[in-house]
């Protein structure tokens, strides 16, 4: 085996063998000359010489030579030792590989999401996302174009600030219409991100609001799939929602836009057709539609930049107070935890999972260290001889540490191979949703470095501790020691016990956290969201993005309702433009008449536009007033239904019916109060919700059908009914409501699934750890136990003897682990629902589980010990 082929080493090694051989030959020759027979002379000479391999080994260490050669020798030695004991080598490597893989997998997810928030962008560490007003998860776009432009032009701390807004649209003009995600972007969008076009060019400043000709930039994947990677695409005209636009460029491969976790397919400027002038010239209401990201100037901190922007914002608010009621403070977030897009959720979940994985790694190291220690103890004699032959302590330690390092390097390599696959499993957790999510782990140099660090750490922990311990054993005592005390002095026993206690103490918090998270998941699934979700089918109809006129759209909507309502198996059909619990919401500043907000109170309300019978189909009771009727159409006065939270906040103690609320500059009259229901998450704090009439303000068209039976059976009928109206009508996201609302618990699923997996690994490790140590100690005491039995000890006595030591360790481990665990659960308290961080039932059941498993682990060796024949047990040693 040539791990470190070195010519000099090979030659010297050969010479050493020859030298020793010559020595033996001469000794034999002398003895033969003295009259011994050839055979006895050979035996005597060999015995006199001693252990040849050991002499060679120690002599080789004197050569010194380059650092590399020494390392090569030590590695060879370590490999030889490990090969002698394949069971240990394979077990330890497998355990370490799993533990390292757990860490690197979670790290690859962090790397693919939080650390690479905007694929393809330059220096994402300098990018910050801007938020106005209250901070919350998945906020609505916070800025109007005019505010954005003022911030962009008047700040002193940014090299550039970009703005974008994205939504679905339909690509027409081809054989098949295709729904794609389009972004309206400021002209500097790609410049600020630091992305260069792969083909053609990006936008020019003068094209921002009103390009001379409508133009579009394609993403690499769209260019590849829909336009067959046409190298001459630049300058060609394509059709978006039946409007011709000119392709001016193609973005490089991998670029998917500025919102973490969301895939944009093509980009146009803010008002490519000149039809959105109103949005670009107002500062409030529907004109607040842009997400904004800035790139900090070199050396500017986030705090300084936030102050700078706040100053600008205050002057804007002073100039246009009526358009900026409510909270206008600006907060900046680095992209890794930007609330816009996926990273807000990631930042709340993944670091905690990484911490769990780190505990698993520690636990594994403790386990492997236990195994190593037991091995080193049984090798004490060999080590002592080496030491007495002149190997110094440092050399011995280095060799032992190297055994751990070799194990962990092999484990790291296995983990690397595993992680290339596991890193891609992250996408499994995200079901099809109404947003084009592109979330996955990535396997780049960061992860490889991470694995190297994890395995080196593991190697050190696994090797150094036992090595340090063993090398302290005084050589003379070990050599003198009789076999009975080979179990290793009291100090080794203490270290072994310590490691077992550590394993139990580390696995308990893992089990506790996973227990809490699993029960949270169950509570979330069992919680009543306040609306019916089991017999509901939803289907999105791409009316607004397919290029129909407003009149056509309204007509088609009515036709859809009529046709679908008439289908057999349909109880109620309604329309909406929002589905609850799908990680998204629509928000708007609302100004209730006669209501004086507190300073900095956010005036944002959630809103949804719903058609008649919406509340009926979802079984949400109207507590006061009425539901919408078909008469609440464009010609009728604007009406609202508010939920209890909104009613209590704006009109406490009053009858909300007849009150008025200003939204988008228009007055809406409250005609009903609906019972509260869940908007985003089961465990949200309720935000005020206002429902508007779909036929007055509806934008997207989502059909919502309450069915008699399983909603899946109605999918083809519903699709047919819509296509009977117009075969070109794009219909997508047809699925039962239950499927969509599961999005709200996807992060709870990730948390509990991984925590559960890690806890299971932890449990197995802890139990095998305590089993291994108790079994080993019992084996070492076979002789003593045999004596005890021979002298009249009963089986119960022996059982008690063996069990007690194991249970004693378990008890200490459980106590420490409980203290550790209860300290740790505070950190996941935020993720829990319907259960306290110190939930006694979970705590008790985890302790029972771990205790019982330990008991079984201790019982097995005890059982074996009492079944042994005392006579053979005494003879054994």
């Amino acid at each position, binding site marked *: 085996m040539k791990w470190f082929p070195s010519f000099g080493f090979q030659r010297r090694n050969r*010479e*050493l063998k*020859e*030298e*020793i051989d*010559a*020595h033996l*030959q*001469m*000794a034999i*020759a*002398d003895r033969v000359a003295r009259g011994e027979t050839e055979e006895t002379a050979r035996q005597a000479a060999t015995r*006199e*010489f*001693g*252990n040849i391999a*050991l*002499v060679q080994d*120690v*002599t080789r*260490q*004197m*050569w*010194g030579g380059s650092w590399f050669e020494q390392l090569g020798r030590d590695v060879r030695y370590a490999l030889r030792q490990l090969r002698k004991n394949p069971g240990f080598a394979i077990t330890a490597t497998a355990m370490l590989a799993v533990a390292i893989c757990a860490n690197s997998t979670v790290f690859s997810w962090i790397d693919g999401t939080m650390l690479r928030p905007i694929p393809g962008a330059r220096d994402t560490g300098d990018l910050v996302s801007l938020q106005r007003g209250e901070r919350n998860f998945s906020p609505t776009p916070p800025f109007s174009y005019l505010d954005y432009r003022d911030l962009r032009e008047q700040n002193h701390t940014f090299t550039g600030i970009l703005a974008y807004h994205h939504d679905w649209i339909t690509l027409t003009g081809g054989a098949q219409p295709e729904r794609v995600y389009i972004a309206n972007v400021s002209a500097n969008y790609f410049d600020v991100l630091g992305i260069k076009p792969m083909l053609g060019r990006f936008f020019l400043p003068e094209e921002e609001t009103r390009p001379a000709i409508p133009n579009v930039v394609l993403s690499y994947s769209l260019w590849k799939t829909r336009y067959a990677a046409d190298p001459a695409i630049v300058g060609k005209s394509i059709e978006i929602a039946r409007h011709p636009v000119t392709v001016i460029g193609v973005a490089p491969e991998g670029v998917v836009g500025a919102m973490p976790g969301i895939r944009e397919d093509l980009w146009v400027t803010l008002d490519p057709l000149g039809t959105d002038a109103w949005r670009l010239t107002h500062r409030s209401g529907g004109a607040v539609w842009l997400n904004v990201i800035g790139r900090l100037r070199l050396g500017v901190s986030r705090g300084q930049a936030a102050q700078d922007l706040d100053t600008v914002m205050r002057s804007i608010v002073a100039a246009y107070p009526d358009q900026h009621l409510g909270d206008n403070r600006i907060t900046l977030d680095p992209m890794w935890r930007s609330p816009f897009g996926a990273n807000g959720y990631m930042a709340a979940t993944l670091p905690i999972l990484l911490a769990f994985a780190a505990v698993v790694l520690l636990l594994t190291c403790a386990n492997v260290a236990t195994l190593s220690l037991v091995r080193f103890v049984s090798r004490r004699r060999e080590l002592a001889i080496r030491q007495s*032959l*002149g190997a110094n302590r440092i050399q011995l330690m280095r060799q032992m540490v190297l055994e751990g390092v070799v194990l962990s390097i092999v484990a790291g390599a296995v983990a690397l191979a595993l992680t290339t696959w596991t890193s891609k499993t992250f996408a499994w957790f995200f079901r099809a949703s109404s947003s084009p999510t592109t979330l996955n782990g990535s396997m780049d140099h960061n992860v490889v470095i991470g694995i190297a660090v994890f395995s080196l750490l593991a190697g050190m922990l696994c090797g150094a501790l036992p090595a340090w311990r063993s090398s302290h054993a005084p050589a003379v005592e070990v050599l003198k020691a009789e076999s009975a005390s080979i179990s290793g002095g009291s100090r080794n026993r203490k270290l072994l016990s310590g490691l077992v206690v550590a394993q139990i103490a580390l696995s308990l918090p893992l089990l506790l956290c996973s227990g809490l998270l699993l029960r949270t998941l169950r509570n979330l699934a069992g919680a009543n969201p306040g609306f019916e979700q089991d017999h509901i089918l939803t289907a999105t109809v791409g009316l607004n993005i397919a290029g129909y006129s407003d009149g056509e759209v309204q007509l088609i909507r009515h036709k859809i309702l009529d046709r679908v309502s008439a289908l057999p198996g349909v109880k109620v059909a309604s329309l909406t433009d929002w589905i609850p619990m799908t990680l998204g919401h629509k928000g708007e500043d609302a100004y209730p008449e006669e209501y004086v907000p507190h300073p900095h109170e956010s005036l944002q309300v959630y809103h949804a536009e719903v058609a008649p019978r919406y509340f009926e189909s979802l079984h949400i009771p109207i507590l006061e007033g009425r539901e919408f009727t078909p008469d609440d159409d464009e010609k009728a006065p604007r009406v609202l239904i508010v939920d209890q939270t909104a009613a209590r906040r704006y009109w406490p103690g009053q009858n909300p019916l007849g009150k008025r609320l200003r939204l988008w500059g228009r007055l809406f009259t409250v005609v009903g109060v609906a019972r509260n229901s869940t908007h985003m998450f089961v465990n949200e704090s309720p935000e005020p919700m206002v429902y508007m009439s779909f036929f007055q303000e509806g934008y997207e068209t989502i059909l919502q059908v309450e069915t008699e039976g399983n909603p899946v059976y109605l999918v083809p009928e519903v699709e047919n009914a819509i296509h009977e109206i117009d075969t070109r009508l794009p219909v997508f996201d047809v699925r039962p409501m239950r499927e969509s609302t599961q999005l709200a618990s996807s992060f709870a699923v990730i948390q509990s699934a991984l925590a559960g997996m890690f806890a299971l690994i932890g449990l197995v490790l802890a139990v095998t750890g305590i089993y291994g140590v108790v079994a080993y100690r019992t084996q070492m005491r076979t002789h003593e136990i045999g004596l005890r039995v021979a002298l009249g000890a009963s089986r119960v006595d022996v059982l008690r003897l063996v069990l007690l030591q194991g249970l004693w360790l378990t008890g200490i481990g459980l106590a420490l682990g409980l203290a550790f665990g209860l300290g740790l659960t505070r950190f996941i308290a935020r993720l829990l629902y319907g259960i306290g961080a110190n939930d006694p039932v979970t705590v008790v059941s985890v302790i029972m589980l771990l205790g019982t498993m330990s008991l079984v682990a201790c019982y097995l060796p005890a059982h074996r010990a009492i079944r042994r024949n005392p006579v053979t047990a005494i003879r054994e040693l």
Partner: protein
Amino acid sequence: MSTSMNEKDQYKNRIELLQGTLDMLILQTLQWGPQHGYGIVQALRLRSGDVLQVETGSLYPALHRLERQRWVQSEWKQSESKQKARYYRITAKGKKQLASDLDRWQQIVEAIGLVMYVKPEESAS
């Protein structure tokens, strides 16, 4: 069981070499002419009247260490009995080292002697 008892007896009967004196003894042996490892063991045993028994496990590491420190050189030669063996030869540097080792040895012996054979009146003065 029995073999290990014999080994232990052997250990007890031998005079353990003081740390560092082995180097000196090897260098001294080589003063009388180049010698191979087996020859050094025999020479030390003979000259000490069978008292000093050098372990091979100590000898070879020591020889290789001395060579690395350039106090001895080695070459392969045929012995009188036509056995090819590695002969060690003391170098000039080795001779200097031997001289200083010997000095130190004598100092230690004298110092120990002073302690061990101290007379009452001398200690009083």
